[in-house]
């Protein structure tokens, strides 16, 4: 016999829980703020990491994101999911960081995923990732954000546009410009060229 299930979609339940949590956070309920931090902090960290690479200011940046989240929660209207809204805060903090100062580059070494059996290939891949972030450091923050969220963080263009509060067309243009910038750099950098050869071009089908 099939057990009857709740008619309420999971997304609505989640949205309701989010709303309750948001209200408690707005009321400066420290327990709720801790709960939200514990729920979202890993995701925020992952997003920041993919945008900025390994960074000595990561601890501060994670805190900054949540400070912004808690300060801005009164303006959250539930038009997007809480997670997407927090991603937007994360993007703000990342852009703000990139505009403020030149981030200290940390080589991508052990943190680069590499199951390559060939040691030479391993070294090349690590070097490629390091070069990628070195070039991203020279890029306009908005272009960087667009391409890292889309290509490295694997988000559809539409979602990136939502996070960056830009139109889909503008976001696609940013991704395209960022990619073109990287391709130009790759002409004189074989490691980066090898990295980019794995990146499919953006098209309309990924929204």
């Amino acid at each position, binding site marked *: 016999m099939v057990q009857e299930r709740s008619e309420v979609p999971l997304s609505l339940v989640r949205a309701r829980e989010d709303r309750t949590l948001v209200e408690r956070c707005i009321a400066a309920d420290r327990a709720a703020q801790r709960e939200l931090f514990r729920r979202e902090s890993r995701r925020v*960290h992952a997003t920041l990491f993919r945008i900025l690479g390994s960074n000595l200011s990561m601890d501060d940046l994670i805190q*900054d994101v949540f*400070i912004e989240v808690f300060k801005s*929660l009164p*303006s959250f209207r539930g038009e997007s999911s809480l997670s997407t809204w927090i991603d937007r805060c994360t993007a703000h903090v990342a852009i703000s960081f990139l505009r403020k100062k030149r981030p200290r580059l940390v080589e991508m070494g052990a943190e680069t995923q590499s199951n390559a059996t060939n040691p030479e290939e391993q070294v090349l*891949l690590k070097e490629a990732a390091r070069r990628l972030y070195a070039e991203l450091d020279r890029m306009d923050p908005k272009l960087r954000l667009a391409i890292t969220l889309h290509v490295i963080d694997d988000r559809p263009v539409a979602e990136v546009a939502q996070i960056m509060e830009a139109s889909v067309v503008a976001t696609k243009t940013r991704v395209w410009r960022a990619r073109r910038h990287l391709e130009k750099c790759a002409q004189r950098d074989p490691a980066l060229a090898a990295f980019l050869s794995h990146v*499919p071009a953006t098209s309309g089908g*990924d929204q």
Partner: protein
Amino acid sequence: MIRQPERTGQASALRAARCTPEVEPLGDVRWARIEQSLMQRLDSELPAAEPTPARASARAPAGSNAPVSNARPRTWPVALAATFAAAAAAAFALHLTRPSVHASTSRVVTEASPSHVTIAENSLDVSPESGIVVSEEEHATVLTLERGEVSLHVAPREKDRPFLVEAGDVQVRVVGTEFTVRRVGVGATVTVRHGVVQVREHGELALVRAGERWPDETKEMAPAVPPRAAESVGAAQPQGAVLVEPQAQGAALSQEQVAASAQPQRPVAPVGRQPHRASAPLAQPHSPAPPPRKQGGGNVGPSDSAVEASPAALPEAPGPGVAPEPTSVSAPAPVSAAPPSAQSQYEAAAQIERSDPARALRIYTQLARGSDPWAQNALYAAGRLQADRGARTDAARLLEEYLRRFPRGSNAQDARALRESLR
């Protein structure tokens, strides 16, 4: 081109090529520390009455559902500088020396180098690898020592507006004196150079005079909770507090203070009679010796949690009563038949870095030649110290050597970052 239906497929393609940067995990201790710092910042920046929908909606574009942008708190004091200046002028006219109640929150984080900070008439020396937050609150100026060590010279203040130093569960109340607070797990140690302070912990009180340290390591019992457990617990649940209330040197004690001093007191050791760190009780030759201090701040990577979580990883791990004053502690000397351990030598070198960097470098270099776990710390410390001294070539050489010998060492990331900054 094949795409994943739910995602773009670009990262998937990269993953298939095994060249997607993998997110570097943070250890539990580090997450706890981030959470604790966040909560402290919330306490200072977003008190309970803070949420102001009106303000937020005014800043957010209508109907945008957008978060209020750029929340870095360091910018808003600048925007309000004119207001504060006017308030300060008014206060001056009324002969009020206390700073504005609504003054700013400032954060200072040092990495390899120390920093000197002046706040009004107070001066702070923030040691390397330390983090502080200073905020003006209604009844006090509050300095939160997130990690590391800070030495303070606090000018005499009105007693109803003290200067508070919070270091984990320890709170130090300052009216006007000169002393050093050092973080030890969830607690702290206090070294007084001028004045007299009154220490309160779990109802016990002690008077600590100039030249004395609190607590006395020779009599102090070992903490009931190992530092690792204490740190993680302390991150979420503050425990008992220590109150240190200094008084002007030679000043008569108030009735409350006299009464307090009659209560059971914890031992206090004169600095001059303090047993040396290299002495037997401090050395732990039989215990594994992970890195004794977190070098380079910030992002240390997966091994970071292990480093920080270990009792021996804390600078004061040997005992809760050690609060060395960097400039007054000499290099280790054998005090018994047993030679000083690598750990104690390392710690002694760390203490004299500022007063005698050449000697500290010699000790580090000598330790680096060894093969025990302290060798890698010493090698990194030597590179860092040379970088601090401006010897860039030598610093780069030492850091290269570190990375060659210990490519996955606990300081490897910091070594790479430092080497990068030297280029």
